C-alpha cells in the first residue's frame, strides 16, 4: 500500500448490539483533501468520525494515517499525531474563557501542558498565537468571557478554534457551521478552505450551500455504508442521492460555483 493517502480505512465497521451503525467502509482522504461526508440522519457519519478519532473501537476493519496503522491508538495519541476534530454537540471548556481554551489547546500541542514549574503568564508566545487564532475566527472581543456565557453560534466557532489550535494534518469537522448564521458560516468555511494546502479536511455538513461550495469530493453515507463517492457535480445529479438525501434541494448552481473555484 502506498503511503500517499493522508487517511485510509479498510472495511471499517462498528455495531451496537445487532445494529450495524457503520459497516464495511473504505474511505480515503488524500493530502490536502477538501472532502464532504453527507448522508441522511442516522446514517453513521458521526459514528464514523468517532471511529476515526478513536472514541469508539471498531468491531471490524482498520484505519491508517499516512503509513501508520492507528487502529489501536487512543484518542489522545491520534490527536498528537495530528488528527483534530470538532464535535457535533458542543464539547468545550465551560468554565474557561475562549482565550484560555485556545491557550490550553496550543500548550497541549506544544507539549507544554505538563510544565508545572513555570507560570502560565510567562508563556507569551502561546498567548500571542491564541490571540491571533481568535482574531481569525472573530472571537477576539469575546476572548475573556466565560465560555458558558457565549451564544451558541460563538461556541461553534470556538469548537473550530480548538481544532485549529492543534495545527492538525487532518481535520475532521462534524457539522461545523450548524447554528452559525449564513453569512458567517460562509466566512467560516473560507477560513477553513484557506488552511494550508497540506491539511486534509473531511467535513460533515447538512447545508448544501457549503458542501457544494467547499468540497472537491463528496462521500455519501447511507445506512452505515458508502453509497457513492465523487465530485460535487456527479453527486448533485445522482438520482439515488437525490432520493435519499437531497430531495428537491437545488444544488446545480453551487456545483457550478465549486467547479469554477477549483477547476
Amino acid at each position, binding site marked *: 500500500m502506498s503511503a500517499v493517502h493522508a487517511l485510509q480505512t479498510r472495511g471499517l465497521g462498528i455495531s451496537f448490539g445487532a445494529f450495524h451503525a457503520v459497516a464495511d467502509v473504505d474511505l480515503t482522504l488524500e493530502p490536502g483533501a477538501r472532502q464532504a461526508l453527507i448522508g441522511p440522519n*442516522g446514517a453513521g457519519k458521526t459514528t464514523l468520525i468517532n471511529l476515526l478519532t478513536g472514541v469508539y473501537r471498531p468491531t471490524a476493519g482498520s484505519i491508517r494515517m499516512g503509513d501508520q496503522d492507528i487502529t489501536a491508538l487512543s484518542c489522545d495519541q491520534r490527536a498528537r499525531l495530528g488528527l483534530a476534530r470538532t464535535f457535533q*454537540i458542543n464539547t468545550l471548556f465551560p468554565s474557561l474563557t475562549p482565550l484560555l481554551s485556545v491557550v490550553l489547546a496550543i500548550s497541549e500541542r506544544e507539549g507544554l501542558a505538563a510544565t508545572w514549574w513555570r507560570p502560565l503568564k510567562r508563556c507569551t508566545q502561546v498567548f500571542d498565537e491564541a490571540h491571533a487564532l481568535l482574531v481569525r475566527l472573530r472571537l477576539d472581543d469575546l476572548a475573556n468571557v466565560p465560555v458558558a456565557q457565549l451564544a*451558541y*453560534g460563538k461556541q461553534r466557532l470556538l469548537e473550530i478554534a480548538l481544532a485549529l489550535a492543534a495545527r492538525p494534518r487532518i481535520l475532521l469537522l462534524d457539522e461545523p457551521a450548524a447554528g452559525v448564521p449564513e453569512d458567517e458560516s460562509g466566512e467560516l468555511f473560507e477560513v477553513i478552505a484557506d488552511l494550508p494546502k497540506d491539511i486534509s479536511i473531511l467535513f460533515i455538513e447538512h447545508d448544501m450551500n457549503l458542501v457544494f461550495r467547499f468540497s472537491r469530493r463528496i462521500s455519501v453515507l447511507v445506512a452505515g455504508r458508502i453509497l457513492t463517492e465523487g465530485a460535487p457535480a456527479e453527486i448533485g445529479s445522482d438520482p439515488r442521492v437525490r432520493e435519499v438525501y437531497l430531495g428537491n434541494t437545488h444544488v446545480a448552481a453551487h456545483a457550478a460555483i465549486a467547479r469554477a473555484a477549483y477547476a
Partner: protein
Amino acid sequence: MLDFDQVTAGYGNAVVLDRLSFSIAQGRSLAVLGRNGVGKTTLLETLMGNTRVTSGAIRWGGDDITRWPAHLRVRAGLGWVPQEREVFPSLTVEENLAVVARPGPWNLGRVYDFFPRLRERRANYGNQLSGGEQQMLAIGRALMTNPALLLLDEPMEGLAPILVEELARSIRRLCESEGLASVVVEQHPVLALEMTHQAIVLERGTVVHAGPSAELAADVALLDRLLGVGIEEIPG
C-alpha cells in the same frame, strides 16, 4: 393569543432582552431572526420561564403567565423545542415521548408516522441517537404535549435537506389545518420566512424590524442590511 409586552429579561444580573414586544394570534406563525447572540434563544427561554424577567408582562389567552412555572405553561399550551435538543439521555426514545404525553391529537403513533426514523430507533436511549435523530425527538416530544403554540429554536439544524423541506411543509400545514401557532427561530431567513406569516428581527435584545414574512423575504436589500444575507446563497 400570545402577548409579549415590553419584557426585560436576562440571566442573573445580565440583561439580554430589552423591553421587547410582539404578539401572535391563534394559528399564526412568527419568525424570529437575528444574528448570533442577539437573544433569540433567550426569548424562548423567557417564554418558558427560565430567565429572570425584571419588567414587562407575558400574556397567554387571558392569563398573565409572566411568573408561572414552566410546567403550567406547558399545560396551558406552550410546546418547546430547545436549541440544543436536550433530549433525556437516560430515557429511551419511546419513554422520551411517552413521559411528556398530554391528551390531544398527537400520540406516539402519530409522532412515529411524522418521523419514521424514530420508530426504528424507539428502543435507543436518548444519548444513543444521531444529532438529527435527537432533533426529531425534540420536535416529537414537543408535539406530544399537544401544544397550541409551538416554540421552535432552530428546528432545522442538523437535519438532512430532504427532511428540512418536509418539516417546513408539515409545520405550515399544521398551522393551516390544526390552528397550531408557532414561533420559529432560524438562522436561515429564507426558510423561516417561507414557513411563517409574520417576522421580527432582533438586534441586541430589541426588535429592529417587524412585519409580514413575505414582505421581508421580498426585500432583499433590507434582509441584507439586517442579517447580511447575500442573494446568491439562497437555496431552492
